[in-house]
């Protein structure tokens, strides 16, 4: 495992990723964090438009990129993510792929 691919060794689990997404999305949408649950749908429940999701992605790439070099989100995949839970699972999988 090349050292440069892991700035920090501890991998993030689903709970930690959910916590990060909940915090950042609540900031972007200016809503209470309690509304950002795994089941919450971005458009229907949280009124998050595509611009808000891109903001979230840019923040996640910047913050998670510090832990796992090479972490990124494909724009094409964004349309498939309709709930917070799906986004959490996607990020966890991408973190795993980047670390492998």
């Amino acid at each position, binding site marked *: 495992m090349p050292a440069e691919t892991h700035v920090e060794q501890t991998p993030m689990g689903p709970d930690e990723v959910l916590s990060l997404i909940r915090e950042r999305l609540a900031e972007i*949408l*200016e809503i209470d964090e309690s509304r950002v649950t795994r089941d919450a749908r971005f458009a229907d429940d949280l*009124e998050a*438009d*595509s*611009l*808000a999701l*891109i*903001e979230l*992605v*840019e923040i996640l790439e910047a913050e998670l990129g510090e832990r796992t070099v090479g972490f990124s989100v494909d*724009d094409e995949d964004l349309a498939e993510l309709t709930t917070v839970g799906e986004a959490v699972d996607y990020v966890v999988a991408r973190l795993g792929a980047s670390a492998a």
Partner: protein
Amino acid sequence: MTDGQRVVVAVDAMGGDRAPGEIVAGAARAVAELDVGVLLVGRVAEIEPLLLQGDVPEDLEVLDAADVIAMDDEPLSAVRKQKDSSIVRAVEAVKDGRADAVVSAGNTGAVTTAAVLRLGRFKGVPSPAIAVPIPVAGQHPQVLVDAGAVVNPAPERLAQYAVMASEYAQVRWDLATPRIGLLSNGEEAGKGDELRKAAYPLLERIPGFVGNVEGRDFMHADTVDVIVTDGFTGNIALKTLEGALRALSGLVFGVLDATDEARQASSVIMPDLLRLAESYDPDVTGGAALLGVKGMTVISHGASSARAIVNAVSVAADCARRGVVDRMRDAVRREAVTREAVTDAG
């Protein structure tokens, strides 16, 4: 910008159907004719030969940006993938303090996306709106907001648009309390779809609100100064006006050129007609303003000429000097127009 310093406007040199030639020419003219500095952003290799064709003004700088976002690129992914594009770099110049405002005639969606991601939105304003000046004979233009940024906004967004556009109109045309109308299908308060019915009581709390207006109230001096609507109907209204004006001018000039007698008669009124037609030229209105982002952003139309860029730079610089962005942000905070606030007030 500090007191006594010259305002600098970042100009996206590569954006627009006539870029970079007309944009570079317009930027050079703006520096020569206005009390403003310009930071031209784009491919240096393409910009510099254009500048060498004339005298390069002292207050014109060039910032290299290798990428160009095309007019038909998908805005969100274009901004994310082309971080060294002229649009992104021009907006970043405002964020970094190198410029006080930005002008682009490029991809509107990409300019909006870059402004949101790099400059940030006002607190409480989820998405920016596009405010377009609509020419009115014999007086200042009306402001149409939103002309297409958000297709399906919540009712309180329309109230925010009204608050921001009112501040903008106050500064642009020195209006004390701009008259605000909600675009609907009838003047009575109960007219309209669910969005308009829900937005009406929120707008009633805003100084200057006069009620519903109809499509026929566009371009008339005795109606309102600000017309508020959602981005879907706003864009349709704007394009309808453009199409109708083009058709009408074609008909008028066609009649005046139809016969020898008509041509002879038209020589008398043609100078006045041409002056009138020019006042409706989008090149002279100064472009659309993006309301709700933390930096003065002006979007000039896609076919912008050098003159359009001069006017857009003039508007951007004037708004920067007069602190329009801060005024709009303060007004949104002050008015705090929410459905909850209206309900609480009974």
